[in-house]
């Protein structure tokens, strides 16, 4: 393997929970780790969740200590705003080209005080909050995001569009804002690669029958996570578009399952968790789950489902035909398995979308020369046996980049990549 003292160097692509776990274990073994993340912050999808099932822990609190460790570990170089552009070589001796976009904010001198946001004249949708709130052109996506330093979004910053605006720079007390920063091309020599690029959710506009983006108060599960989040757009206040609290909600499972042809494995639990969360915040709220087959596999999930069901959440096995606006509310027309047709009226509709591989997966597959399956997930070397090995020796996959899965399975895979990599080097 590529020698660094007496151990390996590893490139980890994607700094979500899987990438974080792999990096920490590798670094603790003495390996040098380059942790590449395309966003300006790290923590992946998990940091969007207010609480995680089944113990309803705060996700940010859960992974923040690990994030701090990443930032402090001398063996780990976290490269945010970075993407892998090319990879050559073979196991033990890969060379990776990484493009690191300029942040225009100096990480060493910025203390994350946020003084630069206020004067910025630009306001755009905050993608991290699913567009439910606005952000400036210099911004941190949400309170608590790490590294605790903003980024300038050059697509929207008026200075990068030619105007002579220096308002953020003038507001900074630490001379941390540097408009002259340049994108960098890094060349890394590594012995192994971990691909942990995670997931995105199915585009709900492809299932128009549910009224997403057409009717009021139809949300995706991810949007509702942000509405529930204490650091989110409503600071955890559960409100409808008219700012009133909803009295009822329905969660439709398996949206996009038919289109995708697979079960996304975690949506039942995520939907049950949201019911739990909403009932906790608004105890009188009536919540119905519209599902087909309940998938609560393993040793702990069924108990959580039973608890939520006993708390008064309705579980209706049905297929939904159509959702329409009914006054200020929504009417859900559904059909049960024995053919009965019914209508359910609710204030709020939550859709649980299928899980898909991240947007750039195909490009990355090409760069790494590793195969994808028909759904776009990275293919394991030996289906049904080895899920972290790819067909290319020295390149490993972990987490939802391989197939939809929950946090514990993702963490186990991340740890498994470490087992494979550290046993390669002897």
């Amino acid at each position, binding site marked *: 393997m590529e020698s660094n003292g007496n151990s390996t160097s590893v490139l980890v692509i994607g700094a979500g929970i899987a990438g974080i776990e792999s990096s920490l274990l590798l670094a*603790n*073994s*003495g390996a040098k780790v380059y942790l590449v993340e395309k966003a300006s912050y790290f923590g992946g999808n998990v940091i969007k969740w207010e609480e*995680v099932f*089944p*113990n309803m*822990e705060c996700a940010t609190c*859960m992974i*923040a200590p690990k994030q701090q460790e990443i930032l*402090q570990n001398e063996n780990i170089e976290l490269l945010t705003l970075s993407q892998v552009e090319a990879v050559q070589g073979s196991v033990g001796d890969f060379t990776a080209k990484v493009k690191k976009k300029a942040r225009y904010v100096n990480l060493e001198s910025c*203390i994350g*005080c946020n*003084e630069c946001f206020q004067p910025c004249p630009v306001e755009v949708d905050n993608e991290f909050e699913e567009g439910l709130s606005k952000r400036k052109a210099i911004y941190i996506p949400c309170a608590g995001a790490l590294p605790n330093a903003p980024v300038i979004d050059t697509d929207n910053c008026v200075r990068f569009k030619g105007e002579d605006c220096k308002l953020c720079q003038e507001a900074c*007390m630490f001379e941390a804002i540097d408009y002259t920063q340049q994108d960098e091309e890094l060349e890394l020599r590594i012995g192994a690669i971990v691909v942990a690029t995670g997931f995105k959710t199915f585009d709900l506009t492809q299932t128009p029958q549910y009224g997403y983006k057409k009717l009021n108060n139809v949300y995706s599960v991810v949007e509702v996570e942000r509405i529930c989040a204490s650091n989110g757009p409503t600071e955890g206040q559960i409100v409808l578009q008219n700012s009133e609290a909803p009295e009822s909600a329905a969660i439709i499972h398996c949206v996009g*399952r038919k289109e995708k042809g*697979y*079960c*996304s494995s975690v949506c039942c639990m995520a939907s049950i968790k949201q019911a739990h969360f909403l009932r906790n915040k608004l105890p009188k709220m009536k919540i119905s789950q519209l599902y087909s*087959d*309940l*998938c*609560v*596999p*393993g*040793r*702990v*999930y*069924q*108990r959580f489902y*039973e608890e939520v069901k006993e708390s008064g959440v309705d579980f209706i*096995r049905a297929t939904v035909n159509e959702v329409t606006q009914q006054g200020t509310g929504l009417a859900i027309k559904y059909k049960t*398995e*024995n053919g009965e047709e019914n209508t359910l009226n609710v204030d709020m509709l939550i859709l649980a979308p299928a899980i898909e591989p991240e947007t750039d997966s195909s490009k990355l597959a090409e760069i790494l020369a590793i195969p994808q*399956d028909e*759904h776009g*997930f990275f293919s394991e070397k030996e*289906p*049904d*046996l*080895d*899920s*972290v090995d790819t067909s290319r020796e020295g390149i490993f996959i972990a987490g939802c980049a391989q*197939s*939809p*899965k929950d*946090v*514990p*399975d993702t*963490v*186990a*895979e991340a*740890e*498994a990549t*470490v*087992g*494979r*990599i*550290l*046993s390669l080097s*002897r």
Partner: protein
Amino acid sequence: MAKKIGVYVCECGNNIADNVDIDRVIKALSPLRDVAVVEKHRLLCSEDGKGFLRQSIIDHELTHLVVAACSPKQHEHTFMSVCIAANLNPYLFQMANIREQCAWVTQDKEEATDKAIRQIAAAIARVAYNEALEKKDIDVCPDVLVIGGGVAGIRAAQVLGSPERKVYLVEKSSSLGGKVKGFDKLFTKMESGSDLIEKELKKLHEAENIEVLTDSEVEQILGFFGNFEVKVVKKATNEELNCDVGAVVLSTGFDLMDPKGLPQYGYGKLDDVCTSLEFEEMNISGGSTGGKILLKNGNPPKSVAIIHCVGREDKGYCSKVCCMYSLKFARMLKAQLPKVKVCQVYSDLCTPGKAYQKFYEETEGLGVEFVRAKKTSVTQNGKGMTVKYESETGSKGDLAADMVILVPAMQPSSDANKLAEMLTIPIDNEGFLAQEHQKLAPVASSVEGVFVVGCAQGPKCILESVVQSEAAAGKILSTLVPGRKLELEVKTSEISETFCTGCKTCISVCPYSAIDFDDFRRISVVNEALCHGCGVCAAACPSGAARVKNFAFAQIYQEVEALLK
């Protein structure tokens, strides 16, 4: 030696200075006891700030340090490093968070200044009682004991074995391969389980430094992470092997719940009701029927009902893989007996992940019937049987079958419980060994250095079991590095010999099994190699004997008193 406490207040640019009158803070703190110097700096975490701090510690010959700045989460680490650079023990340093907890949240500048003064005074009062702590490390043994030689144990040994690391793979039966070697077909590729095991064993033989001990059982495990002493006994000869290992992997697999406890299914009474494992056995060429699917009367079945979720309600969990292997059974039946009628009697179909739904759809396409049912029972009906059930809406139904395959819940094998007791790992509500953290540490048990993988950890498929073995290997390889010492937690608990009454309360509450009882002295003793310094024992101890280093009562009382003064 007289104490000389240095207090440094960070302005954090304007972040603190804007809302806290720092000069007033300095004036208020200067007269406090043992305070040698109080100074401010524009940004202590900057290179300039750190240099200033280091030089000040040296110039003033400080014995203790207080930094009033941001959250310790952000910069405690930074300032501890400065202490080390200035030759001051880093545990003689305390941080007061006057940014997040004061300047940023208290609107009125006067109030914020008063509050900052109290916060810093509390840190000064506390730091005077801080103890200088030293990092400790211990020698560790890199070798590993793997208990259970099924597919998970074999893989763990493969990954772990190396010239510098010996692996002991202990299997109670006479051969490796576990349950998988007895499966004629595996989902989803319908390849043979014994072929898979053969391939895995070939890789195991290629791996180095592995000692396979079949027909053997682990009798005793003493010690702790990095230093376990193990006694293994070869059953036939009573030969004893003693070995030292640094970590233990439990891969003891699963058993099926015995359906005899659920008489409605007729198991043990009706001839042609079998369990899934018995059906598997029928399909292997070396099995009792020579690989033929036969009824007790020697004829092939014409109709087979596969009843899912047997015992699920009693267990309280879904066994995760049964839907998939029931679909596999349907395929095996259809392959051997093309005309056989197969009906899946199920409640919810669980086919998670990218690959399984397709397998289900293809199986359904073979003409397999699916009946969603609850309250299922089996009765004899002439030469055949009747499966009675209720639909979800409560209407009653039945179907005829001359063979019924029960799919019982999976549970950890009984060996797991014995080992859990030996290793003092608690058992959870569902009967599985407790994990260190349900989300973030899926393979680590609550005892450091002991890992639980595969079906011993929870029901799972082969792929997931193998992942867990590799995960345990990853954790072991990254911490037990040959030739490297293991660094211990510094702020551990300690139990005063004088005050301990030997009531053992601490032992019962310790989540890391880090406290032992000294029978001779009749007191509890903390094992520093295992203690994480969580403080549960200190809170529970009725006699005040247990305390966590640097969380002494004096420190906490002084701190609280100064805050409230």
